[in-house]
C-alpha cells in the first residue's frame, strides 16, 4: 500500500510549520502549532456519526428518536416529556367535561321524595337519630340541640367520606378519621382537613312526624 501523495489527502493539522514564518495561524507556547489543532473536529451536537456515513438530515426518523450522544438524548427526553404533559392536559380537560356531564345527568334526575324520619316525641333534647336519605346508601343523622332546634346533616365527612359523630354537648361534629371538626349548628368545618360544610338535610314537621325533604349542598 503506497503512501498518499502530498496534496492529495487532507492536510494534517499536526504537521509542523515553519517557525520562521510569522503568521496569525500560529498558537501555543512555542508558536509552532497551527490554530486548527485546537478547533473541535466535529460539532458538539453530532459527536457520533451514523454508520452509513450520510448526514443527519438524510437519516431515517427513527435514528433521530434513538440518539447515542447524550445532548441529543436530552432533547428527545424533554420532547417526550412535553408530549406526556400535553396528554395530561387532555386528561384534565376530559375530566372537566365528565364533571359537566355528571351535573347534566343529575339535573335531569328525579326530584327527591320526602321521607319520614321519626316522631317528634321520640327525640328529646340532646338526642341523636340516624337515618338514610335520599337513598339507602346515604347515611344521615338528626340531632335535637339543647335549644330544642332540629338539625340534620349527611353523615359522610366532606374530606374522605368517613362517618362523622355528632357531639351535642360540645356543639361539634367530630370526624375520627383525620380529626376533622364541624360546627353542630351550621355544619361548617371548624378544624381539620374537611374542605366543605356537611350537606344539610332540609326537614319538615308534618303533624307529629319529622320528614327529610331535601339535601342542600354547600361550598361555604
Amino acid at each position, binding site marked *: 500500500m503506497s503512501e498518499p501523495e502530498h496534496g492529495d489527502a487532507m492536510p494534517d493539522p499536526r504537521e509542523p510549520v515553519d517557525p520562521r514564518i510569522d503568521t496569525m495561524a500560529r498558537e501555543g507556547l512555542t508558536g509552532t502549532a497551527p490554530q486548527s489543532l485546537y478547533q473541535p473536529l466535529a460539532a*458538539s*451536537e453530532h459527536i457520533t456519526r451514523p454508520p452509513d456515513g450520510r448526514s443527519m438530515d438524510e437519516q431515517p426518523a427513527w435514528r433521530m428518536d434513538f440518539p447515542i450522544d447524550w445532548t441529543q438524548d436530552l432533547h428527545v427526553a424533554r420532547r417526550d416529556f412535553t408530549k406526556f404533559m*400535553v396528554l395530561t*392536559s387532555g386528561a384534565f380537560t376530559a375530566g372537566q367535561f365528565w364533571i*359537566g356531564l355528571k351535573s347534566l345527568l343529575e339535573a335531569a334526575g328525579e326530584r327527591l321524595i320526602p321521607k319520614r324520619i321519626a316522631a317528634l316525641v321520640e327525640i328529646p333534647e340532646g338526642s341523636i337519630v340516624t337515618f338514610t336519605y335520599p337513598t339507602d346508601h346515604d347515611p344521615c343523622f338528626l340531632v335535637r340541640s339543647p335549644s330544642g332546634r332540629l338539625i340534620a346533616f349527611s353523615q359522610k365527612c366532606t374530606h374522605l367520606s368517613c362517618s362523622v359523630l355528632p357531639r351535642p354537648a360540645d356543639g361539634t361534629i367530630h370526624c375520627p378519621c383525620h380529626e376533622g371538626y364541624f360546627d353542630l349548628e351550621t355544619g361548617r368545618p371548624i378544624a381539620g382537613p374537611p374542605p366543605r360544610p356537611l350537606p344539610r338535610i332540609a326537614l319538615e314537621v308534618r303533624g307529629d312526624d319529622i320528614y327529610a325533604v331535601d339535601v342542600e*349542598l354547600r361550598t361555604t
Partner: protein
Amino acid sequence: MRRPFTREQRTTILAGILCFVLLLVVLQLWLFTATMNAYLGGDWSVIWPAAAASTLGLVLNRGLLRYLYRIERTR
C-alpha cells in the same frame, strides 16, 4: 426542506415550550380541583366556564406541541 434551527437551538426552544406547557397543566390541575370542589358543594355555575378554560389550555398545549414537531421535521 432544510431545518431552520440547529439541534442546540431546538433544545432551547423546547425548554421554553416545556415551561409554558407545565404552567398551563398546573393551571388546569388547579381548575379541575376547584371545579370538583364546587360540583360536590352544589355550585354548578362554574362547571362549563371552567371546562371552556381547560379546553383553551389544551388547545394552546396542542399548538405548542405541533410547533415543536414542525421544527423537528427535516423533510
